[in-house]
């Protein structure tokens, strides 16, 4: 009897959860489906759900007309570039704070985090002028620099919380066994640090890929990543639903896949380790 009730309950919960899940996901599903329709089918009334002639025409056209691949590569270069540069600066810093902490370490960490609280609009004017005067406006390099700066605190924080979990006793044990410093780093520390570094990289690529304040304000066309490219569909081209959908699908697909793989790290990184 009790078993029966709980199976029944499980079915009710399953139906409710799936219904809500599909409802929340629906705009993305709809975009995906529309990207394979013709423009006429995309605005058909009543709307066509699955019964249409699937075509890849839109993907082809988006590339032909607007050099989609260039913007895609801009996004790749900017997000990966800023992540790697951030890592190079952050790893030594997080390492030092995790393994030889001083009484001031906590204050330094909190201060770094506080730089993240500054609203971007507070420094928009000077950054725009600096970029204009140094020729960094609308360049990939400029965006790599600025995205490195805005995400650096998150990278350091995440790495710090991961490094902190590496037990110090292991280091001592390795030392007792006569391992040299180089061996200690290569054989003991690196393998233990790599999962944390990988999660940090993943989260940071997602954040950089989707950043839409600086990428919109500091690029025109040459270095515009996908965030800015898609914004050019705001009017009136956005009324070509099938092409808007094709461009959008390609822009979000890589990050959706990365994000699904890193759900757990997402929570940890976005709450600065406050919720694990």
């Amino acid at each position, binding site marked *: 009897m009790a078993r029966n009730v709980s199976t029944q309950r*499980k*079915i009710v919960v*399953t139906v409710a*959860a*799936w219904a*809500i*899940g599909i409802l*929340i*996901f629906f705009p*993305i599903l*709809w*975009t995906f489906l529309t990207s394979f329709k013709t423009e006429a089918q995309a*605005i058909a*009334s009543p709307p066509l759900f699955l019964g249409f002639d699937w075509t890849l025409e839109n993907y082809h056209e988006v590339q032909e007309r607007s050099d989609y691949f260039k913007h895609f590569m801009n996004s790749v270069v900017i997000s990966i570039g800023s992540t790697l540069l951030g890592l190079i*600066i*952050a790893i*030594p*810093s997080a*390492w*030092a*704070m995790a393994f*030889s902490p*001083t009484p001031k370490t906590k204050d330094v*960490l*909190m201060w*770094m*985090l506080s730089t993240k*609280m*500054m*609203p971007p*609009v507070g420094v*928009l*004017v*000077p950054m725009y002028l*600096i970029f204009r005067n140094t020729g960094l406006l609308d360049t990939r390099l400029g965006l790599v620099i600025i995205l490195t*700066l805005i995400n650096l605190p998150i990278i350091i924080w995440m790495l710090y919380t991961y490094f902190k979990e590496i037990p110090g006793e292991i280091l001592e044990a390795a030392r007792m066994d006569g391992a040299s410093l180089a061996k200690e780093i290569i054989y003991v520390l690196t393998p233990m640090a790599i999962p944390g570094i990988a999660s940090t990289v993943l989260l940071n690529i997602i954040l950089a*890929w*989707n950043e*839409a*304040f600086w990428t*919109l304000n500091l690029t025109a066309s040459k270095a515009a990543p996908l965030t800015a490219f*898609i914004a050019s*569909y*705001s009017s009136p081209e*956005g009324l070509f639903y099938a092409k808007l*959908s094709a461009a*959008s699908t390609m822009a*979000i697909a890589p*990050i*959706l896949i990365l994000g*699904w793989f890193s*759900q757990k790290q*997402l929570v940890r990184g*976005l*709450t*600065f*380790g*406050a*919720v*694990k």
Partner: protein
Amino acid sequence: MATLHTRSAARAMMAPSVLLLLAWMIVPLAMTIYFSFLRYNLLMPGMEEWAGFSNYRYFLTDPAFFQALFNTLAIVVGVLLITVIGGIALAILLDQPMFGQGIVRILVIAPFLIMPTVAALVWKNMFMNPVNGLFAHLAKAVGLQPYDFLNNAPLMSIIVIVAWQWLPFATLILLTALQSLDEEQKEAAQMDGAGAWSRFIYLTLPHLSRAITVVILIQTIFLLSVFAEILVTTNGGPGTQSTNLTFLVYAQALLQFDVGGASAGGIIAVILANIVAFFLMRMIGKTLEA
């Protein structure tokens, strides 16, 4: 371990990040403060002059500023209400035993991973458009007039779009917190005859309180600076009906080229964010000790 040698090595390892962030924090902000006291328009180069507090006076007496301030707060409060209440409900639902939990989780998280310009344009064109949008089709199907969401209720529409993006964030964090709730505690409460509602009020909610605080504070930081969603949907309009503080400063700077005025607006935005940040830092500082 912490010999003099390792300590100076540690300092050298931290130096690049500290110096960069120090420069990033001080230099542009100092420039903004300086500009905010100048009469300085990019269209009239070489005409800069000291303006005292007139930029601030201009900003603080501009009706658009109060509209923007109201809109900023409306977006923050509106999105928080939807995402926190919705997030608690969704997290509790997803925490129950069910079939295919992993897949549902993936579906629910998705909107958070979508870039803001895509999310806003898809909603604007494919859903809220009064002629060809899906909502218009739905309205016609049941015999109603299609509603022009972005023209008639621009702020509400933007709140809905932004809430759709942030609901997954709240859900994901609250769900993570919920999963650390002790199963035995729940069972004990049940044995003692506590109903579902009182278990929620006296057990679940207190357990979630820290996660809820974190969600509210982190979202507030981001929601104060909503920008891309406004830019691609309403462009702040009609009039200034959907202009928030961030968008107002952007328009002043990059559309009107008024460096002085925009800088004064930027400083006001920084002060507002600092008030929020003060509480956030205290909160996170506490969890660091725990």
